[in-house]
């Protein structure tokens, strides 16, 4: 059976209260690394450590006590109303107060634009009040005004002590919001440190 090695010895550290970015070309393994961290796929080797707790398998119940995960593709059922979806969450009134969500609450999720869907998903994750949030391409296909709202939300949550790990191809926004970053290249993670916008320019990731 043919095999493809996507990551090999890659590691990274996301800290509470900080926004950590993963940068990389298409197919470099960013989403795979996110999926491994969120227990969506099992790595052939390696572990996830969340606040000292070592998780070897997928351990979904244990992982999701501490993390929220936004996958690259929408995770919302298409044939359900936003209001019904939000009512299934704990303390739904708080989320209903959000101005954008108030506007879309009577619509079915299939009727939402890509940006509205992404905003709703991110708002749900932040509402769940987990210590670490993993965001896989939260800005892709989203209009700039909603991206600004998302950036505000991400900053606010990081200030409140949550650890955010995000990846996206919108490097301008990523370098604006992230405190520290890693470059995923040749199946390995390279620590870029803080203020990595200049580094990315030098490497040709953005102009």
């Amino acid at each position, binding site marked *: 059976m043919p095999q493809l090695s996507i990551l090999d010895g890659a590691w990274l550290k996301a800290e509470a209260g900080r926004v950590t970015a993963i940068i990389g070309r298409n197919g470099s393994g960013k989403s795979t690394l996110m999926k491994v961290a*969120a227990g969506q796929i099992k790595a052939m080797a390696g572990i996830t450590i969340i606040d000292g707790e070592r998780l070897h398998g997928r351990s*979904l119940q244990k992982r999701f006590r501490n993390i929220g*995960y936004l996958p690259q593709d*929408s*995770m919302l059922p298409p044939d359900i109303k936003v209001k019904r979806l939000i009512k299934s969450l704990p303390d739904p009134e708080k989320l209903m107060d959000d101005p954008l969500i108030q506007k879309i609450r009577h619509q079915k999720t299939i009727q939402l634009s890509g940006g509205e869907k992404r905003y709703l998903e991110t708002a749900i994750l932040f509402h769940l009040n987990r210590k670490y949030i993993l965001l896989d391409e939260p800005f892709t296909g989203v209009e700039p005004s909603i991206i600004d709202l998302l950036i505000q939300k991400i900053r606010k949550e990081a200030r409140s002590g949550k650890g955010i790990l995000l990846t996206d191809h919108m490097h301008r926004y990523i370098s604006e919001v992230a405190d520290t970053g890693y470059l995923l290249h040749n199946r390995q993670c390279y620590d870029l440190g803080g203020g990595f916008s200049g580094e990315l320019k030098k490497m040709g990731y953005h102009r």
Partner: protein
Amino acid sequence: MILYLLQKYVIHSAVFFAALVIFPLGFSDNTGYVLVRGFFFGGLLGAGYTFYDFRKRNLWPLYDNLRVPKYLLLCLFFAGFQSLYLVIKPFI
């Protein structure tokens, strides 16, 4: 979201149940046996198809985020589907 999962499970299981019961009933005089078999395999295929369908549509991450135990729920729905036979048994 549990109700949404239940709704989909019931629809899928009902389709499999109908397919497994309607045709064999025409060739068998043992209605009870056909129904029991229909509920068992209908429920089982319904659970399998619901799992596959949710995975294909990328819905499981939402359930993981909400910490809804998907495997346990599908098992409970399957058991509940079997108990429907007890409900209709007095009428056959």
